[in-house]
């Protein structure tokens, strides 16, 4: 097991290297520079600015410098936010994104699995059809439509929740963003659960369990569900990617101090170092989550052996 984890982490290093290299050169190939503004910089000042950030060197040398920095754990200063380093920004802002993502996936799992099981137990009946139609709707309505509608209805008109802002992580401020983030995930998870559940309910060992006279509830919740949610575990990785995508939108609409918002802004402002920092952070996060998902899979499914 430990050996497996070690090997996976070793594989992660070239992957990260690839990510860093691709992102570095793509960012530099983009037209414009972080120091372009509507105001001109005198050539002398511009040269000084470039020298200050080591950007007067040839690109190859900058790349090597950057890699060396990453190895030392130094992601460099932000080119736009002059008082902050990239690490400052990641440290200050990742808890927000992570907290939202964690709650969203937790709620999506609970609600999605319940709905999926409900639908599977009443296959092709009204409940099933309703749940599946809602699930398809959940996938088809983009978050940037649900978010403003919910804000307008629940926050502005009814006044139940704050409309936006982080407010030092107050629970009330998190509810709407989490709901918006989790809706598409609920839809997907309920569909996955239903499909898995239906297959398992027709399998031999469930039939055996029934024959043994076990109560239906035990069969469903203990035996069947455990096998049926396996696909869910392998969905964890993509779910995380989906949440990141969603958080770019949600953090923008709800004006939350998360990392996602900075990625888009920084890419547009050509804040090279911040963009790189975000890419490294998220690539690392996804690598770790994939590993966790695989380990979890092995723990839940005795047939899988890690090698």
């Amino acid at each position, binding site marked *: 097991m430990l050996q497996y984890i070690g090997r996976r982490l070793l594989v992660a290093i070239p992957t990260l290297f690839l990510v860093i290299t691709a992102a570095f050169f793509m960012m530099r190939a983009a037209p414009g520079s972080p120091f372009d503004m509507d105001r001109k910089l005198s050539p002398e000042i511009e040269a000084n600015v470039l020298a200050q950030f080591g950007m007067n060197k040839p690109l190859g040398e900058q790349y090597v410098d950057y890699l060396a920095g990453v190895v030392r754990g130094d992601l460099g200063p932000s080119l736009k936010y002059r008082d902050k380093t990239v690490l400052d920004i990641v440290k200050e802002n990742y808890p927000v994104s992570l907290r939202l993502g964690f709650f969203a996936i937790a*709620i999506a799992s609970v609600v999605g699995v319940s709905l999926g099981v409900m639908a599977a137990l009443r296959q092709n009946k009204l409940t099933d059809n309703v749940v599946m139609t809602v699930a398809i709707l959940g996938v088809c309505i983009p978050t940037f439509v649900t978010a403003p509608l919910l804000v307008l209805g629940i926050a502005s008109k009814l006044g139940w929740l704050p409309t936006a802002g982080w407010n030092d992580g107050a629970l009330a401020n998190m509810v709407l963003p989490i709901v918006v983030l989790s809706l598409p995930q609920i839809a997907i998870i309920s569909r996955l659960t239903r499909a898995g559940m239906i297959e398992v309910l027709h399998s031999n060992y469930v039939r055996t369990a029934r024959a043994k006279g076990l109560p239906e509830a035990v069969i469903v919740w203990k035996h069947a569900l455990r096998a049926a949610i396996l696909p869910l575990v392998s969905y964890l990785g993509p779910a995380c990617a989906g949440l990141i995508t969603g958080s770019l939108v949600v953090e923008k609409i709800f004006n939350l101090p998360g990392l996602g918002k900075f990625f888009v802004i920084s890419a547009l402002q050509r804040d090279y170092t911040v963009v790189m920092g975000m890419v490294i952070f998220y690539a690392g996060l996804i690598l770790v989550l994939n590993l966790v998902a695989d380990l979890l899979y092995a723990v839940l499914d005795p047939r899988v052996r890690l090698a």
Partner: protein
Amino acid sequence: MRSIFAFMYRFFCRQPGQTILALAATLLLTQGCAPSKPQANDCPAGKVCIRAGNGVEVLSLDPQKVSGVGDHRVLLDSMVGLTMASARDEVVPGAAERWETSADGLTWTFYLRPALWSDGVPVTADDFVFSLRRILKPETAAEYASLLYPLLGAQAVNEGKAAPETLGVRAVSPRVLEIRLEHPAPYLLQLAKHQTMYPVPKHVVEKYGNAWSKPEHYVSNGPYTIVSWKLGDRIKAVKNPRYWDADKVCVDQISYYPTTDNITAERQVRRGELDMNADIQSNRIALLRDKMPGYVRTHTYLGVSYLTYNNNVVALRDVRVRRALSMAIDREFVTNKLMRGGQQPAFSFVPPGVANYEPAKLPEWASWSFAKRQAEARRLLAEAGYGPGRPLKIEIKHRNSADPSLIMPAIQADWKEIGVEARLAQNEPQIAYAAYRSRDFEVADAAWVADYNDPMSFLYLMNSTTGAQNYGDYNSPAFDALLKKADNEPDAKVRARYLAEAEQVMMNDAIVAPVFFYVNKNLVSPRVTGWVANLGDIHPTQYLCLKGADKAPGV
């Protein structure tokens, strides 16, 4: 059939990890369903706190490293220059109690009031000398340093051709500062309240270097001092008890939020989550006036939106073409139907209301009907050799921000009506400006907001020596000569006349097509008192108060 919740319960009890998740989820959901009140956001009991939407994220708290209006709004509360802004944005004494000018207008002497930095160290003339040298030193790489070029020797210092000590600024005594100029500049007092002339605390900068502007080291000489800054969330500043006028300051704590989305911010103000926001999406102003009476505050602003022609493009060297294109823009449609926020159609370059100025005469056609203008434009184009058989084809490069994206298609349609085939090419603002500076455009959409209240802040853009920012490469000896005469003229009235003549020259050459003059648009809760709409859109928190607070507002 047992209820599904019973099943769920049993399932989760066997999975302790997931029980926690379930509990957290339930907690979250139940908490969320209770109607919530807008939160006071860590406002200590009995204190007056204001939450302000600042529009953008601040880039730095070091006044010498920033250039945006959003940065200025925050720094304005912490730092005080030699002069400062009143609630109406007039120049009033700041760190200097009074000042004198020599007869030739070249030497200014400022007498500082006794004052302390927020850490108790006295503010001295030496701090100002240190600050001005620091911002001009090439190593500081201050983007805005060129604003200080009227100071004697500033440009040479900034370009690394002279030592910082050669700058014409010196401390005559700890409380007397002498500033010498290259040429008379009646706007020096305006400049003295701008962030580029703010003092920075010499003793702190020498101790921490560039890290001095981190909140934990921050020291200010103004009414507030910054205590925390979480990027993307907020900057928090509290009242500085050592500020000389602290007795008159009502608001104890101010939080600035980076409200990048105007509509989100608008909803927050409406629900009382914010007390004010520094911008409004223009076309919603009428709606908001109706839905939120008393909140919308607009005022003319020192800004102009214009199209600039690239003089390196052969077709645009013809003044008839430039004039025809300018005439054919339906500015009233832009202001009344697209912007809808009280913006005024622009037929000149320098906005109305600017200080030290006698507005230039508008072009004759400004008063014509639109149909007549179109007819004349068609005639001019035909005269220049364009017509149905040989249409003028031109590309408009524009920023992809909200306003230009709305306006440019309308202008494209206007030009189509006089037979001009215009193509639109949009870029992110930063990229667009880079293209303008390298002259990679035919017609470009640009905008300018004054740094200080003086016509020179607009007109210098078209000076042939301005370089990169003179996007169209306008080169008129007559225009340049008038600006030079104005610079060397100590009499404000005569100077104003020269400047107006210069504007006249550039408008006759139709070197730009002004589109509209800006308005500043603020959303301010009626419970905030002491807030006055003004030309510069400058609203220091020290003059504000909240209704019902048992303190008198500052003014």
